[in-house]
C-alpha cells in the first residue's frame, strides 16, 4: 500500500536525480564543445541557465553570464538549481522515504550528495570539471542500475519510473532547444536559416547527441551524417532510443496502466504523444522549432500536474 505522500517524494527523488544527471551531461558537453571552437569564439553561456529553467534566479544574482559564474551557479551554489542543491533535495526526498527504498539506494544518493558538497566548487575550473561531472553521471547511472536490480516491480518502483520518465522527456526537449537557441554566434533564433548557422553547426549537433549519450545509437540507426533534421527527429520522435521524448512517453503509458485511477493522466499523456509525434521536423527547422518545443514542454508539464492531482497528498 503506497502512501500518497511517499509516492510524491519517491517521484520527486527520481526527478531530481534525473535532472542532476542531465545537468551534468549538459555542462560536460558544453565544456567540451568549447574546446572544439576557435578560441576567440564566445559561447552563449547564458543559454545554459535558460535550458535549465533558472535564468530568473541567475539574472537576479549575476549581471553577466560568464563561464565561471554560470558554472558556480549550476554546480555548487545553494540555489535550488545547482547539481549540489538538487542532490540535497534528492537526498532529502530519499531520506524521508528510506522505509520503502533499498538501504543501498539511500547510501548511494548520500554518497553523491557528500561528494558534490565537497567537490562541486572545484568544477568551476575546466580541469577538474570533467572529472567531477563524470563522477556524478556515473554515480547516477549506478543508482539506476541498483534500483532496477533491487526494487520489486511495485507501485514504489512505478512512481520512480514516472518521475524519471517525465523529467527525462522534459530535459531532452530542453537540450534539443540548445540547437534552436542562440548558442553559437550566427545562429540567431527560431527564424534563422540553417545555412547561417556557420561552420560549427554540425559540431554543435554532434555534441548535443553526445550529451544524451546518443551519438553511437544515432550512427547505428540513422545511418546518415549528423544533420539537424535527423538529430532532432531522433531525439524527439525515435521510438527506441531511451532518452528520446516519444520513447519516454510510451514508457509512461505502460507504467500508467498499472496504476489505479489513471484516467485523467492517461488522457493527457495521449494528447502529449499526439503533439510530439505530429511535429514535421523538416518544416519546423525552417520555422517554428522553438514554438514546437515550447508546446511539448507545456504538454509534459501538464502530465505532471495531472499526476500530482490524482495521486499526491492534496
Amino acid at each position, binding site marked *: 500500500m503506497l502512501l500518497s505522500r511517499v509516492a510524491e517524494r519517491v517521484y520527486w527523488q527520481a526527478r531530481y536525480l534525473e535532472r542532476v544527471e542531465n545537468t551534468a551531461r549538459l555542462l560536460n558537453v558544453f565544456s567540451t564543445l568549447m574546446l572544439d571552437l576557435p578560441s576567440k569564439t564566445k559561447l552563449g553561456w547564458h543559454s545554459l541557465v535558460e535550458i535549465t529553467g533558472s535564468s530568473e534566479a541567475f539574472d537576479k544574482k549575476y549581471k553577466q553570464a560568464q563561464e565561471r559564474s554560470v558554472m558556480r551557479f549550476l554546480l555548487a551554489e545553494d540555489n535550488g538549481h545547482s547539481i549540489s542543491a538538487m542532490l540535497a533535495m534528492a537526498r532529502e526526498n530519499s531520506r524521508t522515504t528510506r522505509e520503502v527504498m533499498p538501504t543501498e539506494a539511500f547510501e548511494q544518493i548520500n554518497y553523491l550528495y557528500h561528494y558534490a558538497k565537497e567537490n562541486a566548487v572545484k568544477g568551476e575550473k575546466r580541469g577538474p570539471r570533467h572529472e567531477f561531472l563524470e563522477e556524478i553521471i556515473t554515480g547516477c547511472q549506478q543508482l539506476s542500475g541498483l534500483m532496477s536490480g533491487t526494487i520489486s516491480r511495485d*507501485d514504489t518502483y512505478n512512481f520512480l519510473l514516472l518521475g524519471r520518465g517525465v523529467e527525462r522527456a522534459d530535459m531532452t526537449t530542453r537540450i534539443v532547444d540548445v540547437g534552436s537557441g542562440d548558442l553559437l554566434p550566427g545562429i540567431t533564433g527560431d527564424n534563422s536559416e540553417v545555412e547561417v548557422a556557420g561552420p560549427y553547426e554540425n559540431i554543435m549537433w554532434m555534441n548535443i547527441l553526445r550529451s544524451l549519450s546518443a551519438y553511437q545509437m544515432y550512427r547505428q540507426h540513422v545511418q546518415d551524417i549528423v544533420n539537424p533534421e535527423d538529430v532532432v527527429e531522433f531525439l524527439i520522435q525515435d521510438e527506441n532510443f531511451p532518452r528520446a521524448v516519444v520513447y519516454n512517453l510510451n514508457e509512461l503509458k505502460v507504467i500508467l496502466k498499472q496504476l489505479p485511477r489513471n484516467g485523467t493522466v492517461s488522457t493527457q499523456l495521449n494528447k502529449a504523444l499526439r503533439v510530439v509525434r505530429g511535429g514535421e521536423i523538416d518544416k519546423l527547422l525552417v520555422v517554428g522549432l522553438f514554438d514546437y518545443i515550447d508546446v511539448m514542454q507545456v504538454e509534459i508539464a501538464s502530465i505532471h500536474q495531472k499526476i500530482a492531482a490524482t495521486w499526491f497528498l492534496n
Partner: protein
Amino acid sequence: MRAVALFDKLSVLTFKEATMRVNWKTYNPGKFFDEIISTPGYARKPARGLASYLRSLTHAELLEKKTAADLAIKTMGISFTVYSDAGNIDREWPFDIIPRIIAEKEWDKTSLGLQQRLRAINCFINDIYNDQKIFRDKIVPKELILDSGNFRKECMGIKPRFGVWAHICGSDLIKDGNGDFFVLEDNLRVPSGVSYMLENRRVAKRVFPELFEDAYNIRPITEYPAQLFDTLAAISPRRNKYPEVVVLTPGVYNSAYFEHSFLAQRMGAELVEGNDLVVENEKVYMKTIDGLSQVDVIYRRIDDEFIDPSVFNKDSLLGVSGLFNAWVKGNVALANAPGAGVADDKIIYTYIPQIIKYYLDEDPILPNVTSFLCIDKKQCQHVLENLDKLVVKPANESGGYGMLIGPQASKKELDEFARRIKADPRNYMAQPLISLSTVPILGDRVVEPRHVDLRPFVLQADKSYVTAGGLTRVAMVKGSYIVNSSQGGGSKDTWIVSDD
C-alpha cells in the same frame, strides 16, 4: 576523503604517540567501577579478549579504525537532528569504536528483572484506569496519580488487549561503584535509541570483524524489528487479517526521525505523518494512491498531548482528529496506549519496588536507586539540607533537562532549586550522586575511562522480550555524567558475551 581525515588526525600525533599501545597499568578509572579492568593491569574475565586485542594495536591503528567507522556512519547516513537557532541540523551519529562488554549470566538476570518490572508497571497502569485497587490498599497515594501531568482521565474504563498499556519501554540502567545494575528511570512514552543500538552493531562488525570471528560469542541483536512487529501485530483489533501496522512520526524535522524511518523500513510498515491519516466512522485510514486504506495498529512516536487535537492539545498539527475515539471504540490499537506515561514519572518511579511486590507478589530483581520524595516532609527536609550532595530531578522532564547536579552546582543554582522545591514539592525527587561505572573510549591521544549508562528496550504484548544489551551511551567529556547525544554524549556497541 578517508585518507585526508586520517592524515589530519595522525598529523597532530608525535611518532611516540602514534606507535604507542594501550597500557592497562596506567589506565586510571580512579575511584569508579571500571568495566574492563579490575585493578591496574588486570582485565576482568569477560573483558580479557578485548583488553588484549586493544593492546595488539598501535594508537594510530586504532585511529584508523575510528576513521573507517566515522566514514561508515556518514555513508550509511546514520544521523540525528540537533535543534539550534540556525535551524535543525542533521548530524552524524557519535560513536566510540571500543565496545562495551557484559557477561551473559549477568545480563540474563537483568533481563528477567526488566521483564518483571514492565509486567508490574502494566498491571499498575491498567489498575489505575480501571479498578484503582492500589489506592484502596494504600500502596500509592491517589493524589500523586491524579495530580500527575501524565494522567489522562479520558482513559478511565478502557481495557486494552492483554491489559498492556506500555508495549515498548526503554529503561535507563546504571552500574554503581560495586558494578551492580540499578534502574534509573523507565521511559514509557516514546523511548528512542533502539535504531542506534542496531546501527552501532552494523558499524562495529565493519570495524572489528576479527573480534566477532575469533575472540567472542556475541549475542545477536538484529531480531528486534521482527520482535517489535510481532508485538504490534499481536494487539491488532482485526484478528482475522494480516494487520496493517504503521509508524506515526511527527515528521522529518523531529530529532528521532531517523529512527522512525529505520524501524518502519525494518518492519516493512508504513511510515505516516498526521496528515496521511484520516478518521471516518470511528476507524482510522491512511491516504494511499489507491484511495483510503484501513489501519489496524499505530506505533505512535508522538506524545499523548499531540495525537488528537479534538481531545488533547487543540493546536496540534501532528496528530489526527478522531484518533482517540477510534482507539476507545477498539477499532485501532495504539502503542504505547494513551495515558501509559502515568507510570513514567520520577515520583511514581520511587514506588516501583512496592508496585512489583503488590501486583506480582515477587521481590524486585532489579533495584531502584535510593530516592527521596520532596512531597514527604521529612524526606524534603533531608533534600534541602543536602542539596549540594544530591541530584534533583523534576517529575516529568526527560533528556537530562531541568536537573540539578548538586556537587557541580553554583550557590546561585542551589538557592534557585531550593526555592523551586519549596514551591512545588510534588514535582521533585532527589537521589544521591551515584558513582557511574566507566569503560574505555578512544581519545585522540590515548585510551581513557569515561562514564556510561545503558538503555535496554523491553517489549510486552502476549509475551515479553528484552534486547540483548541495549544502547550504551557514554559521556565523552572527562569526568562528565551527561550522556545525552543532544548534549555531547556518544554511544557504544554493547556486547553480551558468553562465559566460555
